[in-house]
Each structure stands twice: as C-alpha cells, then as structure tokens.
C-alpha cells in the first residue's frame, strides 16, 4: 500500500525527499526527510492550524496545498484521505532583480 502512495511522490520533479504522515505517525519517508519525525510533527501542527482557516464561512478549508518556502527549498504539503503528504522540492527560481 505504501508503494501506491510513494510511487507518485518519487516522480515529482525536483523532489529531494518526502513524508507520508497519518494521525498515528509517519507511514513513509524518503530522501532528506527520511525518518524525520521532528519535521513530521511540526508540519502536522501547521496543517491542523491551517485547516481551521475558513473564508466567508465556507465549510471547507480554502486551499489545496500549503507551501513552506525557504531560500533554496520548499515543503509542499497537502492532505488526502486522512493522510498528510509532504514533499521537499528544490526551489530553483531566482529572485527577479528590480532595476
């Protein structure tokens, strides 16, 4: 079952690690996020907080993906079927130079 989850994550472009987390704990991990339970814990807390946001009283959270952006890499996070998927991707975009 984990291969079905992780196969798609493996193929994400520029990915340097991923985590699949459930309410009980980490289901799968790889790359730079391998065995990273600390990051999993922090991201779970962020997801729980973010999922409580509502716009104009709509019943669902107003977003599909949460991105935690650092200078060189990004954590892309989403929730599907009671599982949290986290992918660490390289951030190759360069900041535009304003002249």
């Amino acid at each position, binding site marked *: 079952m984990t291969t079905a989850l992780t196969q*798609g994550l493996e193929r994400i472009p520029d990915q340097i690690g991923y985590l699949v987390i459930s309410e009980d704990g980490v289901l799968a991990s790889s790359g730079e996020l391998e065995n990273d339970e600390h990051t999993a814990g922090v991201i779970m807390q962020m997801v729980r907080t973010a*999922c409580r946001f509502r716009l104009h009283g709509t019943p669902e959270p107003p977003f599909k*993906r949460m991105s935690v952006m650092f200078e060189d890499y*990004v954590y892309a996070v989403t*929730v599907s079927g009671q*599982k949290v998927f986290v992918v660490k991707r390289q951030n190759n*975009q360069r*900041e535009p130079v304003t002249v």
Partner: protein
Amino acid sequence: MGCCYSSDNEPTEQDNDERKPLIPHPNPDKPANGTERSPAAPPSTRPDEQALLNTILHRTAQSIIDVSAADSQGMEQHEYMDKARQYSTKLAVLSSTLSQKKPAPLPSLTSQPHQVLASDLIPTADLLQVSKIAAYAYSAISQIKVDAKEELVVQFAVP
C-alpha cells in the same frame, strides 16, 4: 503535615492584633503607618508574642488533619458494591461527554495529492508581493496608538 490559612476579609479590630508586625520598626524617628507601639519597649511585646504564638498553635491544632492517625473503618460488602456501582454510573455519564473532545479529523484537501504536489511552485514574484503587503500591514499595525485628547483624571473644583 502543615496547614495553610488565608482570609480575604477586611481586617477587623481583632485581626489588627494578629497583623501587627512581630519585629518592632527599626527606625524610631519614623514610625510605620498605623503602628502605635514604641520600639523602645521590648518587655511589653513579650506577652503579645506569646498570645500570638498561642493563637497560631490553637488554630493549627484545630485545622490539622493527621492522616497517619486516622483509623480506616472497614466497609461492608454491600456498601462497597453500592459505591462501586455509583461511581461507575457517574463515570459512564462523564466519559460520554469526554469522548466528544477528540480533535477534529483532517479534512481532505484534494483527491489527487501527487498532482497537487507536483504542480508549479509559487512564483517568486507572488511571494515578494505578499511579503511586501505583510510588511505594510505590520508597519500599519505598529503605528496604532492612543491619541489622548483630554485628561482622564480631573480635579473637581469645590467652592
């Protein structure tokens, strides 16, 4: 074993005695407010101290609960069963309300997690714009201040 006592009541005439400081004020030139005893009369404070000590001892003796000396009375079987039943029914009532406190389940954001995670990252330009807007908001909030127009405390002119 010890006991703690405190009271929020306003000090009555009786309490004034209990609240008088045990050690007389060191500076005889400037007596503390409300103190009437002169610091140069130590012998006359002895009976006060003794009375105070006795009051404290008496109060402690009254309030103290000595657990080790308590005699454990055996309960009869039917009493025990009754109590056990009473407690378990109470627990059952409480646990039904407690179980409702489980954290909300995670909502599903998408049915295509791989596609969502693989799609384009947030453009740097968008990120810079949002950071700028947030900085403006922060600056605006930090400039919120109270504009005092009038004195809050005024003197009433009494003719």
